């Protein structure tokens, strides 16, 4: 997959009903990179991701995929380039892993089209990339949270899109499984060249795993750039209202945020 698609958010405003949540957002997602959207609760980061994946229609401005507005592109055609893993997808009761993953092929089929060999190949590849081959015949309900999340990612992979959006893929996972999922996304980015955009809660993981960070504050872009450019003590204060100290992560060399609370500080004598 050498073809790189360009996703650009242009003067975007969006919200739910009367309530405007996003205001005049302008960002270009760098093709072939991992971009994280960060920000405080209810700042609009999920809304931005959902608008970028056309789950929400913008009230103003547009989201452009290769220069064409995604809200006027036929949705099945779009689904072949732009994939999305929503925050809480629903698994039909009793569905097996291989069945669920195979549903990622939906956009590649019209009414009455036959199943092709390449469909099975895409599914097998997705299972292997996510290391879920062993779970193939198991039911989703019996899997652990981490396994389940890998299976959902496998479904999104079977869709074979060049761009993959993920809404908080690490929520409800313990730290080991969070790392596992993020490592998997990096694998994907490196081996398939997939452009990845995700909403992340954990600032330090976002700084470590992303090439680009977009910080949202009250529906507007507050900072946009590499982790080193974006994660500063001033930015953390502006976006989260939190006093902190930013140091260099000894493992990745990326910035790392140490929050300064009111308690539990070393007493300097």
């Amino acid at each position, binding site marked *: 997959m050498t073809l790189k698609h360009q996703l650009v958010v242009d003067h975007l405003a969006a919200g*739910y*009903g009367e309530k405007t949540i996003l205001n005049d957002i302008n960002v270009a997602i760098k093709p072939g990179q991992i971009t994280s959207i960060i920000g405080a609760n209810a700042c609009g980061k999920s809304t931005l991701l*959902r608008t970028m*994946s*056309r*789950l929400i229609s913008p009230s103003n401005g547009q989201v452009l995929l290769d220069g064409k507005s995604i809200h006027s592109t036929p*949705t*099945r*055609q*779009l*689904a*072949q380039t732009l*994939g*999305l*893993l*929503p*925050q*809480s*997808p*629903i*698994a*039909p*009761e*009793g*569905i*097996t892993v*291989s*069945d*669920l993953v*195979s*549903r*990622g092929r*939906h*956009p590649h*089929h019209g*009414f009455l089209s036959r*199943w092709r060999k390449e469909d*099975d*190949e895409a*599914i*097998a*590849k997705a*299972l*292997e990339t996510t290391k879920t*081959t062993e779970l*193939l*015949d198991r039911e989703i309900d019996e899997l652990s949270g981490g396994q389940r999340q890998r299976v959902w990612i496998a479904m*999104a992979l079977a*869709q074979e899109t060049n761009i993959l959006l993920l809404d908080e893929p690490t929520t409800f996972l313990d730290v080991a499984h969070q790392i596992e999922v993020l490592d998997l996304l990096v694998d994907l980015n490196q081996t398939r060249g997939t452009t990845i955009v995700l909403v992340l809660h954990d600032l330090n993981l976002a700084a470590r795993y992303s090439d680009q960070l977009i910080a949202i504050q009250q529906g507007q872009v507050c900072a946009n750039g590499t982790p080193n450019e974006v994660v500063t003590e001033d930015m953390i204060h502006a976006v989260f209202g939190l006093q902190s100290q930013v140091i260099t992560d000894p493992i990745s060399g990326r910035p790392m945020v140490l929050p300064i609370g009111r308690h539990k500080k070393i007493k300097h004598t």
Partner: protein
Amino acid sequence: MINTSSTLARVTNGRKNRSKRWKCVVSLLCLLAVAAFSITLTLGQSFTPPQDVINVLLGENVPGASFVVGQLRLPRAIISLLVGMSFGMAGVAFQVMLRNPLASPDIIGVSSGATAAAVFAIIVLHMDGSSVAFFSIAVGLLVALAVYGLSYRNGASGARLILVGIGVSAMIESFIVYLLSQAQAWDRQEAMRWLSGSVNSAQIHQALPLILSLLVFGGFLLSRSRDLEALRMGDDTAHALGVRVGMTRITVIVSAVGLIAVGVAITGPIAFVAFLSGPIAVRLVKNNGSLLIPSGLVGACLVMGGDYIGQFLLPSRYPVGVITGALGAPYLIYLIIRVNRKGGSL
């Protein structure tokens, strides 16, 4: 790298097994439907030898058998089959679309809307035949859209829609009772018999509207079956997979209401067939393919079987709706208890 070819083989096998299982279930249900159909034709108050039945079906005049089989049993069997399929398909379409077994048209007011319209058409407007059907389709659609509209807030939620539907349904039921209280004695008796859902007065010419409705509305539903399957994973995921969610919803609602309303106009609301067929089909098919056809066949078997039980296997005769109602009610109670405990999905 891991062994891709063995994974590929397992994926291919898994898919083939799923489609095999689906075909197996559908064949079995077809067999069951054929069996119920044949029993209805051969075995009633009296036994008609299969040879005579076949001769009657071929259009020959067989003394004795021609009237019993051709005039009484055949229309009954055909109408039961078609109405059962219509209710079964429509019910599961709603249940899958809203991801809740309680979202069946006979729970959320669609069936009672169509019923009220038909009662009104018969008692007050003195309509008959196809005009009753058109009237009840129109009202059924109106009720469905009203329930959908009333429960719409930042997108339609299944649970809210069901609660609104149950409320609307109760209002409509009371309207039906009011209509009955105002009706002439003769009309009332006629309406009551029809309200309990029965194929007693089935006539062969009634098959035509049912066949047309199955071809048109059922065909529409089948053309959306893949999108419906995707909707089972939530609206967001379906959207991400390229399903036009709003468009699919509208098509499914209109088609399912059409199927229900045409059926209701002919046999009356046969209780709980739409509600029971889907969950039974799900238990047979599991996740091995589209539920529309299996559920239609289950519906057909329920109506034919229920009618046979009501006619011949009980001490006195009951219309089919009484039998299916008696089957459905305990399941409804079970479902409400279970959904209350762990949340429902189909």
